[in-house]
């Protein structure tokens, strides 16, 4: 049988494929331990050191290499990602909730929302800045115009996640609550929301990470004050040093920390749901 031959070949291939995906990171990670400040962003490693990590946090004596301008940018990016996460998730939950009932024009509304994630950032960014600059006449800021564009981008993701969750949602528990005379609003808060909470968490994670890393829209739509991706982009044009590699390793670790928080929250909410189900069984 061919698959006896094919399967091992493909297995090796997938190994190489994953190496292709990770190769640059491994090199980046190794080079972040280059000696400093003389060591450049290339091989060979002159001497292993944590110089560039200390450089990142301003713990090294001043040298000709300026520290990365990431401190304030990080705060801005976190704030922006948080604002975007809250708005996009609320809009996403609301829209997905509406899609549980059939209504006229559902197709158009669906495509209108999904368009937000399909249109390239360079176009939404350009359009938003044109609108702000030449029609409305407002200054662009990361917390105003860039925020609007970020929500346009992340709301569709939140919407699709919630749609997938609500598609599998058993509506009879809500009906039970309504028939007991509980108002729809309270039913949503007390019955629906706790049940869809894992989905809401995923939508939030999506919105947050996408916004935190968003670059093209922010480049056009934000003003002078840089967010983190813009600060990184700014270093591209000048000579690069291993401090940007060290920074890359740090942001990756930060993302994993975020992922871990998500995992813990998810675990807790699943456990709570199980506990509640058990109590119901006893009662």
């Amino acid at each position, binding site marked *: *049988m*061919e*698959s006896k031959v*094919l399967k091992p070949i*493909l297995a090796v*291939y*997938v190994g190489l*494929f*994953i190496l*292709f*995906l990770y*190769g*640059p*990171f491994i*090199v*980046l990670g190794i080079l972040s331990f280059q000696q400093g400040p003389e060591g450049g962003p*290339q*091989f060979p490693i002159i001497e292993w050191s944590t110089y560039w990590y200390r450089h990142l946090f301003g713990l090294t004596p001043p040298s000709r290499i300026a520290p990365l301008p990431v401190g304030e940018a990080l705060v801005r990016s976190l704030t922006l990602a948080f604002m975007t996460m809250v708005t996009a998730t609320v*809009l996403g939950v*609301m*829209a997905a909730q*509406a899609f549980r*009932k059939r209504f006229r024009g559902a197709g158009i*509304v669906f495509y*209108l929302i999904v*368009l937000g994630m*399909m*249109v*390239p950032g*360079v*176009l*939404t960014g*350009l*359009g*938003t800045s*044109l*609108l702000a600059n*030449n*029609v409305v006449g407002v200054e662009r800021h990361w917390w105003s115009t860039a925020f*609007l564009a970020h*929500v*346009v981008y992340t*709301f569709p993701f939140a919407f699709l996640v919630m749609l997938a969750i609500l598609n599998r949602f058993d509506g009879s528990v809500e009906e039970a609550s309504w028939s007991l005379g509980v108002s729809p609003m309270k039913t949503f808060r007390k019955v629906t929301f706790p049940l869809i909470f894992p989905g809401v968490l995923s939508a939030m994670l999506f919105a947050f990470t996408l916004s935190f*890393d968003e*670059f*093209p829209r922010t*480049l*056009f739509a934000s003003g002078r004050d840089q967010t983190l*991706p813009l600060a*990184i*982009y700014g270093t*591209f044009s000048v000579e*690069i040093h291993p401090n*940007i590699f060290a*920074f*890359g390793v740090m*942001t*990756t670790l930060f993302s994993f920390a*975020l*992922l871990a928080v998500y995992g813990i929250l998810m675990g807790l909410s699943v456990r709570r749901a199980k506990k509640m189900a058990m109590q119901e069984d006893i009662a």
Partner: protein
Amino acid sequence: MTATSRIRQKKTTFRLLAPGVVWMILFLIAPIMMIVYVSFWTQTTFAINSSLTLDSWKNFFASEAYVGALWTTIRLWLIVLTLTFVIGYPAALYVGLMVKSKTISTVLLVLCVIPFWTSFLIRVLAWRPMLGKEGAINIILLKAGIIHTPIEVLLFSELSVIIGMTQIYVVFMVGPIAFMLGRIDHNIIEAARDLGAGFGRIFWKIIFPLSLPGVVVGAIFVSVMVLGEFATSGALSGRKVNLLGNIIVTQVGSLKWAMASVVGVILTILLGIVVAGFLRIVDLKREI
């Protein structure tokens, strides 16, 4: 359902949808319309005014650099699309179809997705120490005795942009294909095998057609992202490769809003044609 409750339900649907729909119309549709409109505005050295003209359009098609950027964009898009498909499909075939255990296939998919939690720009930048003249690939090839002088064309060339984009976007091809392959009923394959079909025949007659919707979705993802690219080409080509996106960035940088808008409209049309073309191959609504 009574008439009043139907009206009430309509009201609820409207209230739930209104904020999102209004947001998208104001901050997505209006900006795109604005690009079309501004592309006909009059550009003076430092400002634009709203008297309509075709000047920017004429300038675009008269300029070799701009039309060249259009062709470069199309060429790079076709190359990257082909590469992501050729490199991605076998990986998807293994992950989606060959691996019997669900756990292993999930683990493999998660392994593919993990790099996305690193900043996009850092992922682009990571190719520099990899491809440079003193980069990892050259060192490995030199040590292995395959080459004797370092390959310089690896970095700051079109090739580096292609390598970088392929690595960054290939996963968007693998995901949808693996998903479609995972849904194939193994009994169909068994039946074909029992009837004496070889693997080649099974692949072309059963597996590939059933995975086609995944290929189309992946191709749409990759196309939309590659066509709108400018960061990878900027960072890995040393400004040698100019895509439509790069033109938009430089034009906005020098406050040439009208020309930036012309390029934006051309990019939008290009995207529309590409996406509509892919959707013609497969009726996605029916398949998914």
